[in-house]
């Protein structure tokens, strides 16, 4: 990147918080996805005012700015697809205010998700969105990607827990949208911004809702000898109108990989397990647990175990949340998909995924948020083998297409990012794109923020498209 730009960045944030040496930039060319893109510089602002000055500087030089939290995203959302300045928010990590009485907190975007809950634990409160990466991912990243997690089944995704934002637009102007209360006069700009994947504005301050911890929690592990029985159990639990706090499924192949690594107590010889958590008043949890156990047994569960204490419960969750890490022991890389389908169609979707795995000769594991119909098939592959990589991408696209065919969507919680931008036409018409583009341009008219995301490359910002396409050609995966 031009030295004058680097000097300009250093004059704003200080020399020690700007990176531009190739060996430093290497660390920022990837996130949790299979995508790669190297930024021209990395900068770590400490304040909203610095963010504003950086985007003004970038605008003067026609350089895009890409916001980034901890880089744990799974769709390439925080990668500099067309190069540019990667703005990492890890130094804006202050919890600015905790309002216990009104169950709100005001935080900077770099606050780690898990740290938010720890900071309010003493008051019996917590921040509900709990992605698997919650011990490292940031609330800013959660907001821009509208992150989910296992417990969103009962409590909703990030957008349900954000009431106000401070924004910096590409011209450096600072706005506040939403309100501490949540009701706001006028259009729900907070609702629009959450999940906008950093393509509209940079978020520099977030007001979140805090929930009160439940009085009673019961975690059940239902063990099945047939995958169909497990998936039909999920459909039946939903149909019976039981709403667990979480309802996760691991198929046999996945749970064996996890058990080898974590020793969570998953049975090695089963075809699938369901991890079902019930929360609420003790009286409510007791009756729901009875209902869940009845459905499990109706669908031939071999056994339904109940975690006896917090230690057993934590172990089961450790197995679930570290499952993707366990996959690293089996193959050089894995492609974690994120499709979403109507919950009543889980059994047929799992059968279809199995067929596709056989067709493309991949072992595809399934570990997912069954209660939401949010599938996470995992395709193991070796990225050093271009043919295998290509096949992995093809089978993944076919699975996502199938999700859409049966009434689902492209992504339940990982975002579109770079990964799925070319699949967007499966769901959206040219007219839909045209409106989305107009809304995009209302905030970010020159594509100065996070270019090359969400929109298919031929339907995004006109002037950035050739640049993004050139970048893709120069840096093929």
């Amino acid at each position: 990147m031009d030295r004058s730009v680097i000097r300009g960045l250093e004059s704003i944030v200080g020399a020690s918080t700007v990176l531009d040496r190739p060996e430093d930039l290497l660390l920022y060319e990837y996130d949790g996805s299979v995508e790669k893109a190297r930024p021209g510089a990395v900068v770590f602002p400490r304040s909203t005012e610095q963010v504003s000055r950086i985007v003004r500087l970038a605008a003067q030089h026609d350089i895009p700015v890409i916001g980034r939290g901890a880089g744990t995203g799974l769709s390439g959302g925080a990668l500099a697809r067309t190069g540019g300045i990667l703005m990492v928010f890890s130094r804006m990590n202050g919890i600015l205010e905790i309002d216990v009485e009104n169950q709100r907190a005001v935080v900077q975007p770099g606050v780690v998700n898990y740290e938010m809950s720890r900071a309010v634990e003493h008051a019996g409160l917590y921040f509900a969105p709990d992605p698997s990466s919650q011990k490292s991912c940031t609330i800013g990243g959660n907001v821009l990607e509208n992150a989910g997690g296992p417990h969103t089944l009962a409590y909703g995704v990030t957008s349900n827990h954000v009431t106000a934002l401070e924004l910096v637009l590409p011209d450096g102007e600072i706005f506040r949208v939403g309100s501490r209360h949540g009701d706001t006069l006028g259009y729900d700009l907070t609702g629009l911004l959450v999940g906008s994947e950093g393509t509209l504005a940079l978020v520099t301050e977030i007001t979140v809702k805090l929930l009160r911890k439940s009085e009673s929690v019961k975690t059940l592990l239902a063990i099945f000898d047939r995958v169909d029985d497990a998936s039909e159990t999920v459909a039946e639990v939903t149909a019976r109108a039981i709403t667990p706090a979480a309802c996760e499924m691991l198929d046999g192949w996945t749970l064996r990989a996890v058990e080898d690594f974590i020793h969570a107590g998953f049975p090695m010889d089963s075809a699938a397990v369901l991890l079902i958590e019930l929360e609420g008043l003790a009286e409510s949890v007791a009756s729901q647990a009875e209902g869940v156990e009845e459905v499990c047994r109706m669908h031939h569960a071999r056994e339904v175990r109940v975690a006896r204490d917090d230690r057993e419960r934590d172990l089961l969750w450790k197995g679930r949340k570290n499952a993707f890490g366990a996959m690293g022991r089996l193959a050089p890389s894995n492609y974690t998909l994120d499709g979403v389908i109507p919950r009543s169609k889980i059994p047929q979707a799992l059968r279809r995924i199995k067929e596709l795995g056989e067709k493309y000769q991949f072992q595809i594991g399934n570990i997912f948020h069954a209660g939401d119909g949010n599938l996470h098939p995992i395709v193991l592959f070796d990225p050093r083998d271009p043919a295998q990589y290509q096949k992995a991408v093809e089978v993944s696209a076919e699975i996502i297409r199938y999700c859409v065919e049966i009434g689902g969507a492209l992504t339940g919680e990982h975002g579109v990012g770079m990964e799925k931008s070319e699949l967007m036409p499966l769901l959206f018409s040219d007219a839909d794109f045209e409106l989305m583009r107009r809304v995009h341009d209302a905030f970010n008219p020159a594509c100065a923020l996070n270019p090359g995301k969400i929109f298919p490359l031929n339907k995004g910002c006109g002037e950035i498209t050739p640049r993004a396409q050139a970048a893709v050609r120069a840096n093929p995966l």
Partner: protein
Amino acid sequence: MSSSVANVAGRLESVIGAAHVGGEATQCEKYAIDGVIPAAVAMAASAEEVAEVVRFAAREKLALVPCGRCTKLGIGMPPARYDFALDVTGLKQIAYYDPADLTLSVDAGMGLGQLAEVLGEQKQFVPLTVPFFDECTVGGAVASGISSMLRHFYGTARDFLLGTEFVNGAGTLTKSGGRVVKNVTGYDLHKLLIGSLGTLAVITRLNFRTFPSPQGYGHLVAVFSDVDAIVQFRNMVAKSPLAPDSFEILGPEAARYLAEFKEDRSSPLPSWYAAGLWHVCVSFEGTEAVLRRYSTDLARFAQQSGAANFEFLDGPRSEALGGALRELLNLLVCSGPAVSIFKISSLPAFPADVVRLRELAERLSIPCVIFASASGPLYFAAQPPVLDGNAIGAMAQLASGVFEYATAHRGQASILFCPAELKRVVNVWGPERKDGELMRRVKKAFDPENVFAPGRFLAGI
């Protein structure tokens, strides 16, 4: 009359046929907003017809207001231009309903009460428990942004609206979101439509998450002589493991409206009513064991916080009270010729200094009614007995006091319903805010020709 607005009805007929257009004054009066009567009404029977009508309006530079059953057209400022109404009550089908998946896709013009009946057959519901329930459409309930009583537990429409189909200002049928309960594909444009008063697009179809009907439900009504005790009671409940469906706080005057809300005016006032005192109504749901737990804990909290009296209601009595609470805003809208209802959203929703609002009205000799939801807005209805210049002057002073009060509580206030005369001297949306600039840009993205209800929304939109 300029040529562009001449013979609107006749020109609309050429677009969607004479059977779908009304041009008689008697037909158009129903669609009047603050005394402005449109020249025609287009009654679309399909989303495609809606699109055709909007394209016509954009082409001819006409302004239209999308309408359902017209129960909340009084919200907002009078439109600067209003050539014709676009009635979407002809769009009234359930397009898709998968009870096993708890998801639903319904046309915007379907009645909310009618939808509740269909869902009720499957023991499910959509928690849009809003005033004008039996009279309004699903689309109107969402586009008006009117607050649902059950939001305390179920949240607002933005928490369970999964997606929408709509016609934008260019007359193009577009969509946002989907029909699945978890979805981050593309921008959540449908969230912008909630509370947009039809200024961005005409909603044609809405996808909702549905919820299981409760196995059982009940109400507590607790009576308090002072506001501090209510705050104490509310905080005790908030810090407990209880998660009530609704938590409504009523000033003495609001409680009287509630007590008198019944079909048979001659029957005695309900046993829970205590004249001159504040009332708190808490609803809860669950199994018998859960209902017992609520009764035990809420009774203890009421006693400990110094309630003067309390009573639990179940079955039909609880249902009747819930219905009356839901319609309280509706009752107040109809309570006099000059009534003005302020909506204040701040935290806490019901602060102990709420009495300042009453003092403000008393100083101006305006009778008033207060009620609030613990996690929703606070409503403050001012009821001057007559509508004259003095009343409007006093109400304008009151409005500036209320806007100041909201700002002091880091909140926002607007006037939800008021006479057109007051709107001539007060902007019901309160003082201009900086984010109004962003809203104007969003409006332009959706409706570049300014076809939809120009001037009705805040920031001059």
